[in-house]
């Protein structure tokens, strides 16, 4: 038996590095390996035990202290020793209900070892392409598959490839957009950290299809582990003839490099990304011309997102039809979502298009955490919108999601319960876009700032008559006038919350009340004398000493001193602290 410790960024953050270090002191090198991210963030750190290539046990929430027990189980071949660490049947359903293509190797192979990738059939698709397919064949296969841009826009991939293929220029470039910036989205990071060769292979196939000799991966600098693993993979691929001149002894030559982006959200917009690649300030260019004709250094360039490339090798291996067999009329294949927020089981989820939101949230995600009530799900991050309970049976499909006012986006899926104030949520995203606006066009630079100020005043109980109308006016103006996708979609969180939760805005403005009791300016805390047992816990916890009372006698809060941090309510074991 051998073991693999899940070593994605999320696992490491949860303590997987320490678990690995502890195990390495107890186990011989050949028995201990790493793998990427399986996507079950809620169970990290995860340790998988394999018998040959068969997974025999998946241990979850593993602590450093569990290392000896695990090592002992391995030495004695007795898995009963780690029985209490094994994943529950219920939690296993998180994976079993998924269909994994882009994530097919994630959490299974060792991302630092190309051999592992080769063992699961890696670079087979590239070999097939270079030996049996013309670039046109490749584009045709992608066309049949119906693959669309997974970065958010959902533009048909074959179309872009074809445009770049047909464009004339001295040199063509293939660019991978790994500037994943939506708050709550991390599928691109997981793919690079867990399966970098899959990305390289997908990119090489695309480069072959469009005729590019140079490929660049634009990764945000906040992803150091992804950069490290991709650098290693590029080195391995180059050493083994998968990159460079005459790849696999064919006539096709292409090299690849990484460009670390300095962390501007707008650089996820393809023309701003190109500006940044060229060393300029990351600001969008006017389109047309499109990058397919005049992109990087004004040469024909094709840009796709990480997840898009991660599907390519699979499509080549299995055929476009196999991919197109999944999904809906409009949207084919699978899509990865980062399920976060008030969800019981959060993590990376890859499901076939056409599944309902309800299935994803309840069957895979296990519903709302801590017995809460579902309120809405924010799809597509700051460019997307929220979808209320009444629309939970909407199927995942570009058009159907678009009709709700939300978007597929890059796959952020933030679940909210009854304690989430929708105005505050919209404000969060507007603050985000305001800060991330590049400052070029007037509508986005000033318009989002003004919207964010209006939302700020509403959540502070200073909203005025006419604020909703002013917000709506600004939303429409910014959608119409902004230069790039960032600005044009920035109003979406406000538009959808206004569409589905207008009453919350009205309550803030007219009644100076926050129905979700989240906006601190509009709430107050009070201790229910009948419930308070005088345990003094709240008074001890209060950071400003605003709670008074004798031991074993009901306490009270000095409202003038209270800073509304809510700590009293969270520590009270008797539910005596009431939010009003």
């Amino acid at each position, binding site marked *: 038996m051998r073991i693999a410790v899940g070593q994605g960024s999320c696992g490491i953050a949860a303590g997987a590095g320490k678990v690995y270090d502890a195990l390495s002191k107890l186990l011989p090198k050949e028995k201990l390996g790493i793998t990427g991210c399986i996507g079950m963030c809620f169970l990290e750190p995860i340790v998988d035990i394999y018998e040959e290539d068969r997974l025999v046990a998946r241990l979850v929430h593993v602590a450093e202290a569990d290392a000896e027990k695990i090592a002992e189980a391995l030495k004695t071949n007795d898995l009963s020793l780690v029985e209490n660490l094994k994943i529950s049947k219920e939690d296993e359903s998180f994976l079993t209900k998924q269909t994994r293509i882009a994530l097919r190797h994630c959490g299974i192979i060792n991302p630092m070892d190309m051999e592992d990738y080769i063992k699961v059939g890696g670079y087979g698709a590239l070999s097939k392409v270079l030996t049996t397919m013309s670039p046109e064949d490749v584009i045709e296969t992608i066309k049949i598959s119906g693959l669309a841009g997974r970065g958010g826009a959902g533009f048909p991939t074959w179309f872009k490839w074809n445009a770049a293929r047909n464009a004339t220029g001295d040199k063509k470039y293939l660019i991978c957009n790994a500037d994943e910036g939506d708050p709550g989205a991390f599928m691109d990071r997981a793919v690079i950290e867990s399966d970098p060769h899959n990305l390289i292979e997908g990119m090489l196939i695309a480069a072959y299809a469009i005729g590019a000799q140079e490929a660049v991966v634009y990764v945000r600098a906040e992803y150091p582990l992804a950069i490290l693993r991709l650098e290693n993979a590029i080195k391995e691929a180059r050493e083994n003839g998968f990159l460079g001149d005459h790849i696999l002894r064919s006539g096709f030559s292409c090299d690849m490099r990484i460009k670390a982006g300095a962390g*501007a959200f707008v650089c996820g917009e393809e023309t701003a990304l190109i500006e940044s690649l060229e060393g300029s*300030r990351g*600001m969008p260019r*006017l389109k*047309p011309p499109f990058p397919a004709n005049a992109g990087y250094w004004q040469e024909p360039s094709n840009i796709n997102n990480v997840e898009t490339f991660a599907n390519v090798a699979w499509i080549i291996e299995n055929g476009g039809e196999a991919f197109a067999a999944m999904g809906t009329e409009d949207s084919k294949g699978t899509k990865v979502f980062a399920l976060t927020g008030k969800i019981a089981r959060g993590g990376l989820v890859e499901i076939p298009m056409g599944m309902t939101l309800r299935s994803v949230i309840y069957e895979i995600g296990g519903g709302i955490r801590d017995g809460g009530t579902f309120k809405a799900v924010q799809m597509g991050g700051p460019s997307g919108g929220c979808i209320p309970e009444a629309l939970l049976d909407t199927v995942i499909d570009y058009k159907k999601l678009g009709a709700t006012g939300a978007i597929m986006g890059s796959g952020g899926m933030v679940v909210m319960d009854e304690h989430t104030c929708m105005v505050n949520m919209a404000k969060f995203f507007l603050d985000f876009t*305001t*800060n*991330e*606006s*590049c*400052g*070029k*066009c*007037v*509508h986005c*630079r*000033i*318009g*989002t*700032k*003004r919207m964010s*100020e209006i939302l700020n005043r509403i959540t502070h109980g200073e909203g005025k008559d006419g604020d909703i109308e002013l917000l709506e*006016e*600004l939303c429409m*103006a910014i959608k*119409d*006038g*902004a*230069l790039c996708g960032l600005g044009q979609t920035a109003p979406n969180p406000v538009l959808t919350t206004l569409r589905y939760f207008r009453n919350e805005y009205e309550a803030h403005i007219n009644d100076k009340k926050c129905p979700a009791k989240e906006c601190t300016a509009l709430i107050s805390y009070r201790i229910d004398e009948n419930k308070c047992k005088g345990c003094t816990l709240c008074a001890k916890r209060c950071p400003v000493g605003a709670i008074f009372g004798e031991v074993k006698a009901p306490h009270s809060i000095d409202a003038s001193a209270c800073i509304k941090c809510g700590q009293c309510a969270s520590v009270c074991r008797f539910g005596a602290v009431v939010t009003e």
Partner: protein
Amino acid sequence: MADIQLFINDTEVTAKAGDTILAAAKEAGIEIPTLCYDESVKVYGACGLCLVEAEGVPKLLRACSSKVSKGMRVSTQTPRVEKARRIALELLMGAHQGDCLGPCTLNCPAGTDAQGYVKKISEGDFHGAIEIIKEKLPLPASIGRVCPHPCETVCRRKLVEEPISIAFLKAFAADEDLKENTYRAVAHAATGKKVAIIGGGPAGLTAAYFLRLEGHSVTIFDAMPKMGGMLRYGIPEYRLPKAVLDREIEEIVQYGVELKNNVRIGSDITLSQLQADFDAVLIAIGAWKSMPMGVDGEELSGVIPGIELLRRVALGEKPAIGKRVAVCGGGNTAMDACRTAVRLGAEEVYVVYRRTRAEMPAEQIEIEEAMEEGVTFKFLTNPAEIIGEDGKVKEIKLQVMELGAPDASGRRSPVPVEGCFETLPVDSVIMAIGQKVDITGMDGVETNKRGILAADERSFRTNLPNVFAVGDATNRGASIAIAAIGEANKAARVIDGFLMGMEIPYRAPIVSEQTLTEENFKDRDKMPRAKMPCRSPEERKHDFCEINLGFSKEAVMEEAKRCLSCGCHDYHDCKLIYYADKYGIDTKRMAGENERHEKEQKLLCIERDQNKCVLCNLCVRVCDEVAQKGILGLVGRGFQTVIRPEFNTAQTIECCKNCMKCVQACPTGALKML
């Protein structure tokens, strides 16, 4: 390149393939607004003003970057397009900080370009100053002497030490101009249209001047023997020598204005007759009736309305007012009356005012000078009764007052102290508590609730078809001369439009302003305000000769140099103001929190004011693409984005050859050549 046909606003237009919509429209003479486009540099597409609609395209297109195509149908003025542009302009204006016009100009009811003429005066160019002044005000020597100068009240120099002495500077320039080689405006050719102006006061004279310059024939009808209105009959000689006023009226008359004095409308000629004889009639009759006090004894001999006293003195009479005089009121007329009383030989002159000195509406200098001349101020007293003997004033009973709660105007209301009275033995009582409009003869003109003529505030039209009205006789009633002049100036433009068959309501210029404090000016050197030399109280109180001795030329120029030049140097060329005005936007609608930036002169010959920058990036692009220097760059992100010289080093300055291309490219006043 091949020619292609397309339609812009339903007009067929020919353009070259590869042209942008903006270029094609320009070629066809159709203006599409833009702040960030310039032919010399690459297209940028930031300002969002050039948005247009194209048939079959769901999105709005940026005309600067969208290429024309065959048969394309472009609309540049649809409601959707206009709305998007308006919001872009409103957003820009809401983030645009600075003074388009200086506070002095903004606060002047006539909108005189005080900053402009003060600048000319500082250069000793009095002729140039008068040219600027007379664009708005044809009576500068008179007004400069008597105006309570709202311009100085808001002058920002007071944040350093004291305001500029703007009014006296104006009077000086005007006096110089009247001496020799007097300024002559160019009058338009005769239009054949006739305008009657009722009332030859500051408003009537101003309207006559501007209407005459437009080529209309103008006749002024006035009930008094000479023109000048309240300037002549309401302001004492010692403040405004009538010789000065006469000279300025002569200047207006020489353009060919006809004067008809001693004509009273209603008795000598009717308003309807004027309506019939003239193409337009402007009523500028002022407010010539004194407000009664409503106390017992008001009918007694020896009770004289203040403006009547001033008028009689101006007409050369010497009214017998006795030795002891009480003047009731706290405004400028009360000051004029009490000081006139001193000059008429009264030995004890009292000013009865129901509040305290702090609340007095009269000019501070007037109060001070009256005190110097021996006037006694009875603050916190109010006339309760005028007691007579044989039908003649004997004494005045005063109710003692105290200050209560602030009223609507913010001033504390005086309230009587019950049972507390004081009695002054006096020979006469002068009432100066306010003026009323005498509408006798203005038959058929609608009045408001207060019995004042009602005129539209923007078009100055009355209910009668060709009758307009301005000044003290209208709407809010009596105010200061410059306010009446301001209305007359605007009304002249409206009447000109009316006569020439156009409807031109007056529209306020669009400007932005800022809130500054002493803190912003703490580095400025203190330069005290020039003090007007004047005759001693002992000397002046015995005659009606002018009190002020006047400034020297050197003193005037020094004083003018204190001006901070608040208004934007680029006001007349600013594209942002041009479009904002054109689209009639509300500059405050999209206001919000803005960053405040300091002006900076790192490039030695160029001053940069980020507060006025619209981030069109033209300076950056011109420096890079045209001047090939690349000295400027964008720093920061989103709303915090600013333009800065790269690296801010000595090499940067060295590199800048002051080609000024950036300054020329800037659509606003953010860049200034030093």
